[in-house]
């Protein structure tokens, strides 16, 4: 496994634990077999690329409730989207600094991606909730 993949897996695990008090179990490449909410962050510097996070709708709602210390039923759709953007933002910064500690990057404001069922296979998936992969993470260098 590449050093970038190792950095990504370690960073996602650290973020999920510190932000949401959950354990992220790495599941390898996979497709999320559900409707998803996703966001991406473009970065530039020594390397240019894009970082993408996708969550199943159920997990996105659960994580938002955890983050805001609220009941899932109280969470607004806009808060779910905003939390997913913030997760992408934080994960991107953490992964790149873990991979290239001395490099300086500029980050764009996180963007929403099309929601709904995605046929994409993610290079890295994690299970946080029900045992099946419910988080997908991709990083693309040189886009």
């Amino acid at each position, binding site marked *: 496994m590449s050093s970038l993949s190792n950095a990504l897996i370690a960073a996602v695990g650290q973020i999920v634990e510190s*932000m949401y008090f959950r354990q992220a179990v790495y599941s390898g490449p996979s497709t999320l077999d559900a409707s998803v909410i996703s966001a991406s962050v473009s970065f530039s510097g020594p390397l240019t690329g894009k970082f993408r996070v996708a969550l199943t709708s159920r997990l996105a709602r659960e994580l938002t409730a955890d983050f805001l210390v609220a009941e899932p039923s109280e969470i607004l759709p806009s808060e779910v989207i905003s939390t997913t953007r913030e997760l992408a933002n934080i994960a991107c910064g953490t992964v790149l600094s873990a991979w290239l500690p001395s490099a300086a990057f500029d*980050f*764009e404001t996180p963007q929403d991606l099309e929601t709904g069922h995605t046929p994409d296979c993610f290079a890295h998936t994690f299970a946080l909730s029900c045992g099946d992969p419910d988080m997908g993470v991709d990083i693309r260098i040189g886009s």
Partner: protein
Amino acid sequence: MTRVLVVDDSPVMRRYVARSLTMTGLEVSIYEAGNGSDAIAIASDIRPDFVITDLNMPGMSGSELVARMHADPGLRRVPVLVLSADRGRSRASELLDAGAVAYLTKPATPELLRHTLMTALGGRP
């Protein structure tokens, strides 16, 4: 009551920071802004005791906010904490040189936010 201005384009991050401060028992009044321009206007009006700002925001960024506040005689004594997802060491140095009192990376725990605020205010809260 300590007046804290929280500046972030993400509403959920503003809510997270506000909740983090209040849940640790601090007696604070929270004011919110979604970018640096709004933050300058609010800060000029309310004269906050402390500002917590994101870095990457549409319009005026956190870097520019720190510089503008440092150049304003009425605001330069207000401590500014930068809270960002950017973990680059050089970025933190730039912000501290520009006048920020601290630079924390997201997600900062409630305890760390409280400790940083209390240290910057000399234990006042």
